[in-house]
């Protein structure tokens, strides 16, 4: 059958192109596409090693329609710092956005040192963390962003231990502590919110940090169709607060219209299956307590002034 090019076809307008080898339903591929199209074509991307880098650039294919550079796992922020410095030297710094992006590892763990250096030196760079809560590319191992109770291949459920025993490294707070002028979180369930935050960040000079929760069907163990629903439930249960912190002050939160118990968010995910056994009851209560603490801390139910 002859191929019809529709009047509006993403092949024409999207800076992130289909044909990449992300898993079906991958939250990160959606996140990356939303970020890049919000940033526009005058953007240079520096990418850490990880799922996003691998599934978009298997030679000779590339899903990117902007200049894009991948170096190593832990140096994306440092490479980006060099790109930004070069643009300043060339007098092109005001004309081109530099976005550095990475996942759990490249941001919170192995890449943490270079991230801190980039923040501290005040480079005009937007850092985007695609938070899928584990090292997915290497096979779903536990990361510093893996939440309490999640089962991963290195924090598995066994007879002695039930999943991950530590909480998420609070990267937004760490970014704020570095004096980063714009820090925000969002999820792929809210594309307009994501787009607005990216555009706002890019209008500010200096380092910016946006952390995007991106569900991973393979790693989280859920049906490929539930990526968006889970990204929404993470917010509505209080597990993943969506906030903006500008110049150290909390300036916006996404209010929870109708609070849902964490069970609704956790149940469809195989990585939390053990929480619904008798042995996991205490852990489940702890997860609920963590969500409630988030709601309290950020006033997500509208009880606190912004």
């Amino acid at each position, binding site marked *: 059958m002859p191929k019809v090019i529709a009047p509006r076809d993403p092949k024409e307008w999207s800076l992130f192109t289909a044909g990449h080898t992300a898993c079906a339903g991958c939250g990160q591929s959606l996140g990356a596409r939303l970020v890049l199209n919000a940033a526009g074509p005058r953007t240079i991307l520096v990418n850490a090693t990880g799922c996003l880098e691998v599934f978009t650039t298997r030679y000779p294919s590339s899903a990117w329609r*902007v*200049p894009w550079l991948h170096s190593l796992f832990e140096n994306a922020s440092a490479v980006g710092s060099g*790109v930004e410095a070069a643009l300043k030297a060339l007098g092109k710094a005001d004309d081109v956005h530099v976005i550095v992006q990475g996942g759990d590892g490249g941001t919170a763990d192995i890449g943490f040192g270079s991230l801190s250096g980039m923040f501290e*030196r005040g480079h005009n760079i937007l850092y985007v963390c695609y938070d899928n809560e584990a090292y997915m590319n290497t096979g779903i191992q536990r990361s510093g962003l893996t939440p309490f109770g999640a089962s991963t291949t290195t924090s598995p459920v066994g007879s002695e231990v039930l999943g991950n025993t530590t909480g998420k490294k609070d990267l937004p707070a760490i970014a704020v502590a570095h004096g980063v002028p714009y820090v925000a979180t969002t999820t792929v369930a809210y594309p307009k919110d994501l787009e607005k935050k990216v555009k706002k960040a890019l209008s500010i000079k200096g380092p910016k940090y946006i952390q995007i929760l991106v569900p991973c069907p393979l790693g989280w163990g859920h049906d490929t169709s539930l990526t968006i629903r889970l990204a929404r439930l993470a917010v509505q249960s209080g597990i993943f607060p969506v906030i903006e912190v500008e110049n150290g002050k909390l300036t916006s939160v996404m209010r929870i219209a109708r609070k849902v118990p964490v069970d609704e968010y956790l149940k469809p995910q195989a990585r939390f299956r053990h929480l619904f056994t008798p042995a996991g009851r205490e852990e489940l209560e702890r997860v609920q307590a963590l969500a409630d603490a988030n709601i309290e801390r950020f006033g997500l139910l509208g009880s606190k002034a912004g």
Partner: protein
Amino acid sequence: MARTLEKTQVMEGSRAIAASVQRCRPQVIAAYPITPQTHIVEHLAQAVANGELKAEYVKVESEHSAMSAVLGAEATGVRAYTASSSQGVLLMHEVLYNVAALRLPLVMTVANRAISQPINIWNDHQDAMSARDTGFIQIFAEDNQEACDLQYQAYKIAEHKDVLLPVMVCVDGYVLTHSYEPVSLLDQDLADQFLPPYEPSWALDVDRPVTYGVMLGPGEYLEHKYVLQQAQKRALGVIEDVAREFGTLTGRAHGGLVEEYRLDDADVALVGLGSLVSALREAADQLRAQGIKAGVLKIRTFRPFPAEKIVAALGGVKRVVVIDKGYSLGSGGILGMEVTAALASAGVPAVVDRFVGGLGGRPIPASTVVRAVVSPELPRRQDGFLDLKPEYLGEGD
């Protein structure tokens, strides 16, 4: 405007090197301090602060980030510079491969220093040797004038369209970086004439949105490595051409692959890298005075390894004595092994005596070299280690 060599001055090696780098007009500098490289990067920081050097100076938080930042800068199409030593060179190890494989013509000065444990801040060649597989071109300076002259040549070699590989200029830490020698710098106009502005062969550019840093599979990676090897081989010729051009401009022969001293009629050839060569020259003179026809083959470029030149220079000697300041534990001195392999492959019948000394900054005086030539038995019994002190050794050693 006169294009000249500046008046000869006595100054600290690091300061002279920094002044030479400044004249290369790097646009981005990113470096992390480590003894004994520190004075180089400090002088450059002062030059930027004084407005004498228009460069973005990124005060990175580690050497891994230093090499990564200059990688990013070169990838964006500017001339960049960094410097390091010892542990810093090791820490950035994986990034070195990246820079070479991306064909980025960066220049890095390495103030050669020993490797921990235990910590030792003095000079040897272990750090440079650890990087010999990375794809970096490696050139060693014998004295501070050469260290200066190699900086300009390094950029010209690196940025040559047939090469496009990063260059490591090796300068013996403390021995050269912190000693005061008379040097003559190029004035800026002469430097500009020799080294025109950088024209990148590729760059991250929103008007040409190409993807770099891809994943390459088993079906193509072998060929990629072959292509890099061919670039190293082409560098052999380019290094000589650039040295010739520099010589014409300045009257100084401080470049190229190898240099011979009294080798024409020699029976014994002394071979080494860097400042050690000065001791080898002295030793050759002393041996000649004793009636032994000694000469020196100075190897200036270690990567690409100039096997052909070495074979041509040493074809007529009966005995070759190689003194290494780097060592591959479990095997032996690295330069010695590579020279031996080159000569053996070419069927050169000379006997090669391999010695190692100078590790951790132990001086190698000419007298030690002479002793190694005249009575090599003791060091040979001790794995070739020169001037080994028995009081530190245990029973099983």
